[in-house]
């Protein structure tokens, strides 16, 4: 069974953390992953940096720019991860924009992910219909789960379509925004969380965007299987370094 599906079947609320590979330093990737697992994180999203991350806010943009300056590339990341499954057991997802994967070759990219033990991909600018028509077969051949986003503006029909194409979890964007731009959830979000929960989708939902502390984590996981933290974590390692990961995860999980 794919590690993502196995993790989703556990009877607990899941914490997923995003970090930008190659940031703050080029060789931090493996130790960040190991520390996150050790400190109770359930799923890790490894950000493959891109020069033009148009769904991301300033924090992840800045970390991506720095990671590229540090020399991060697709090849470098794959090399860093080649032995990761000797020490890490939780699901690992690569999150990145489509162009670097497209240049690497989509099939070659998927194949490499399988060799390493990557369980899924999140590609914000690969639309569900293009995936469905051109790439789904390849992803499935290499055992990868492709995770799609939905937003408060996504209508029910499209949510059902995305649910039918998905085979992992659905990434619920908490509000209309780029990453890192929200603080706290209001009535509008809670209503949206309820609406989606009531749809009884076949894939569990994990909420992302706007989760930065214990309070928002609890709020989000009241309605969903788990929550994803990205910008807040990137900001934390930027301010406090990578030796303080436990402080961060403790503050979320309390």
């Amino acid at each position: 069974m794919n590690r993502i599906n196995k993790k989703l079947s556990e009877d607990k609320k899941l914490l997923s953390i995003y970090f930008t590979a190659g940031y703050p330093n080029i060789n931090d990737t493996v130790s960040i992953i190991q520390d996150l697992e050790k400190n109770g994180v359930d799923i890790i999203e490894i950000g493959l940096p891109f020069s033009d991350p148009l769904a991301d806010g300033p924090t992840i943009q800045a970390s991506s720019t720095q990671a590229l300056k540090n020399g991060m590339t697709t090849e470098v990341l794959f090399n860093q991860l080649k032995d990761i499954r000797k020490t890490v057991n939780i699901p690992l997802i690569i999150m990145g924009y489509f162009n670097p994967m497209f240049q690497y070759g989509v099939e070659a990219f998927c194949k490499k992910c399988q060799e390493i033990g990557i369980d899924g991909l999140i590609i914000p600018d690969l639309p569900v219909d293009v995936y469905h028509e051109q790439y789904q077969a390849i992803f499935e051949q290499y055992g990868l789960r492709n995770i799609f986003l939905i937003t408060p503006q996504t209508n029910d029909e499209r949510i059902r379509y995305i649910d039918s194409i998905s085979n992992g979890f659905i990434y619920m964007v908490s509000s209309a925004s780029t990453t890192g731009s929200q603080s706290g959830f209001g009535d509008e979000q809670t209503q949206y969380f309820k609406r989606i929960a009531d749809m009884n989708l076949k894939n569990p939902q994990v909420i992302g965007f706007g989760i930065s502390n214990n309070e928002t984590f609890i709020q989000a996981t009241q309605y969903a299987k788990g929550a994803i933290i990205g910008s807040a974590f990137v900001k934390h390692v930027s301010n406090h370094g990578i030796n303080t990961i436990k402080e961060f995860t403790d503050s979320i999980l309390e």
Partner: protein
Amino acid sequence: MNYNVNDKGYYGEFGGAYIPEMLYPNVEELRQNYLKVMAEPDFKAEFDKLLKDYVGRPSPLYFAKRLSEKYNTKIYLKREDLNHTGAHKINNTIGQILMAKRLGKARIIAETGAGQHGVATATVCALMGLECIVYMGEIDIARQAPNVARMKMLGASVVPAKSGSRTLKDATNEAIRDWINNPVDTHYIIGSAIGPHPYPDMVTRFQAVISEEIKWQLKEQEGRENPDYVVACIGGGSNAAGTYYHYLHEEDVNIIAVEAAGHGVDSGESAATSILGKEGIIHGCKTLLMQTNDGQITEPYSISAGLDYPGVGPMHAHLCKSGRAEFMAMTDDQAMKAGLDLCKLEGIIPAIESSHALAIFEEKTFKPDDVVVVSLSGRGDKDLQNYIEYFKI
């Protein structure tokens, strides 16, 4: 072969809508409505009236006698430089502001490089009384001060793009991010024939008035609608798209696209995307794109701020790959010289973008009875400082 967009939003293998889900409702709303709205008699009447009374169309098709004598061929200039605000950009912003109103949008955003599209957008927003926010790279703001002032006088907010390379591509990223954060009341007026489908097609259709006019104007002057060549400069490619549109399927008309070679195609400082780029995804479409082997988008260079875009519209990528259009690349030096030539020979100061199209006559020989129509996409007022510094005037 079909050179127009197909029903899935592609030109051959190029185009499509590679957008984050957050943008899907906006882009889908536009996709479902744009052709319907453009076909409404009310819309057409309002668009045509504004182009006539406000923009000053039709723009003249001018036979450049002395330039023609110099190169021993028949050169016509399509005078988009005489439009209100000084370039072809206004054709598209008039169309899109009317579209935005039909879709009930109250807030307009745009990206701009040199500031021409920003000024054209700020202008139509003032005309319609809509809020206008223009994203512009921090570096461009510093080097295009007069256009920043124009936009402000017209009531627009100019927001600096401080990420990445702080130029046009980053301004476009910021505009897209704004749209993600404001998904209901906002329309994004893209200034070139780029972006996710339906933008390249919609922008092309608004700019198509250029070739629609060339047809009847040339008929009046030469007795035939079809020239032997149509020539236009290409950054993203909106003036080129409009200049070619009604000739795409006229096989007796040769199409020439002129890119900016900067300091030379192989100099490392160039914007010749058709030569230096390869297939990739930028700002929501699959097209030819300047990038590293690793798929990171690189920063192009040209003396002309309107041509230094790392991609090219998907229609043009298809025209290039299919061989329908001949692509040429002119350097800064060639363009500047051709610009000054036009001043002396015809009394017209062209935009440096347009000067790239004029520069091909030094490189390519035409027959004496060839009719060559060149899109003079903009006037050179905005470039005076560049001309002054370059020629030490």
